[in-house]
């Protein structure tokens, strides 16, 4: 029998009820599929919440809308629904591929889009049992005062590992719809993440992710690929999303975004300088340079940071080549 901290579980059925519940219970946390949060609660990671607000019965968090170039995905949509939706597979293949590569099939049946976007950052010194972390005197991210990955550092480098954020980041106008105590607001997806592994989200504690939306220009080809230790279940060691526009033999547009490397999803800067000509070895070499300079990959997994940075470059070049060559 597992002994978990005491909390009260609330099961609201609308976003308004969630906001009201959150306002009345300041120490509460949102529960999606629980495939991240319940693991952490069981390991004593994070302060135990006095109240959990179960989002699984909130009707207005469900549903995927596809209209023209736009897609809008409710935060309560499961990863499996997103991966299998025929409209998503046809018009947003990169997003469908990213969803289909998350964890394993049972996890995808439980996990939600909101939970994936808000996924806690990860590190081998953090995603461990209570006694393991206690034996190491904890770390900066929770309960301690030193970073074991970079002992001189005052900030945490725990890695963002969600697969959906990069796939959304290569689309246009990716935005998060948020409901908080003060009302609704939208935030560019890029601004949802701080880049600090400890306080990784720019959300106020009372703010609920309601939906995410984005737009795919008709000519943009999208794809997703990742490497992991066990291909059927693990978090990414490196994941890459790409968006490519080909005009004749010319690379007209290129976007790349990474996960599993930095403390935030990384939209690679400078790719526009690679566009305008053929996709030749020189362009690929410059692409590798951008990856080497921006992809960080500290030793937060059992695999070395060097390997992950290298793998990120290999994946990116392969994926760009595949999307460019597809007819």
């Amino acid at each position, binding site marked *: 029998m597992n002994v978990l901290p005491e*909390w009260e579980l609330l099961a609201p059925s609308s976003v308004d009820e969630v906001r009201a519940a959150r306002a009345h219970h300041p120490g509460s946390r949102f529960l999606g599929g629980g495939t991240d949060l319940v693991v952490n609660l069981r390991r004593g990671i994070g302060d135990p919440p006095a109240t959990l607000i179960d989002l699984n019965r909130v009707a207005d968090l469900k549903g995927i809308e596809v209209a023209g170039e736009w897609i809008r995905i409710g935060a309560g949509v499961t990863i499996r629904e997103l991966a299998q939706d025929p409209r998503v597979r046809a018009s947003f293949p990169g997003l469908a591929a990213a969803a289909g590569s998350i964890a394993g099939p049972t996890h995808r049946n439980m996990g939600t889009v909101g939970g994936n976007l808000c996924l806690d950052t990860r590190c081998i010194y953090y995603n461990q049992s209570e006694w393991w972390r206690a034996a190491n005197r904890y770390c900066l991210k929770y309960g301690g005062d030193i970073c074991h990955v970079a002992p001189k550092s005052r900030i945490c480098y725990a890695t963002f590992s969600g697969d959906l954020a990069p796939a959304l980041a290569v689309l246009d106008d990716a935005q998060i719809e948020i409901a908080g105590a003060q009302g609704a607001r939208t935030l560019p997806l890029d601004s949802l993440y701080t880049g600090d592994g400890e306080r990784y989200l720019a959300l106020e504690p009372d703010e609920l992710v309601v939906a995410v939306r984005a737009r795919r220009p008709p000519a943009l080809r999208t794809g997703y690929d990742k490497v992991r230790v066990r291909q059927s279940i693990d978090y990414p060691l490196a994941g890459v999303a790409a968006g490519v526009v080909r005009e004749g033999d010319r690379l007209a547009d290129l976007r790349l975004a990474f996960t599993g490397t930095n403390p935030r999803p990384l939209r690679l800067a400078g790719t526009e300088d690679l566009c305008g000509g053929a996709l030749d070895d020189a362009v690929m070499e410059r692409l590798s340079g951008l990856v080497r300079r921006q992809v960080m990959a500290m030793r937060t997994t059992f695999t070395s940071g060097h390997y992950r940075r290298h793998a990120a470059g290999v994946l990116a070049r392969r994926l760009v080549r595949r999307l460019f060559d597809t007819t």
Partner: protein
Amino acid sequence: MIRLLTFRLNGRERTDAVADNVLLLDHLRESVGLTGTKTGCDGGECGACTVLVDGAPVLSCLTLAATVADRSVETVESLAEEGRLAFIQEGFHRKLGSQCGYCTPGLIMASEALLRRDPDPTEDAIRDALGSNICRCTGYVKIVEAVRWAAEAAAAGRAGATRSAAP
């Protein structure tokens, strides 16, 4: 907080007093007494705890019992009828898909969910559907054969053959 939880378990409605912080896994094993569902890891890594909620596979070790109110939960105990193994159980037995047996209830429930939505799955479909379940003994080949055996036996059964007796 403790509440009265009403849900369907293996086809029968029941109401239990359950605390909000109790995992479905622990409720099934410790309170209800159905120990077929296994605890294999400290959360989300192995699939030994897989049960069906409203027909779809779920990790009961990451599910709070209170969240299944008014839903239908099925465990491995629901499959055998009057002492006769279901085809999927018999498949694991005949094809040696089970060695130490610890992963077996979870794998059987994940397979059961697959066969309900796809009665004639390809090897790839089987491997995809069982991706959340880890087995340290069999090497998975025998498990894939077990699921294929069950699919074929069920098809033959629908064509008129009868269920075989429990071994």
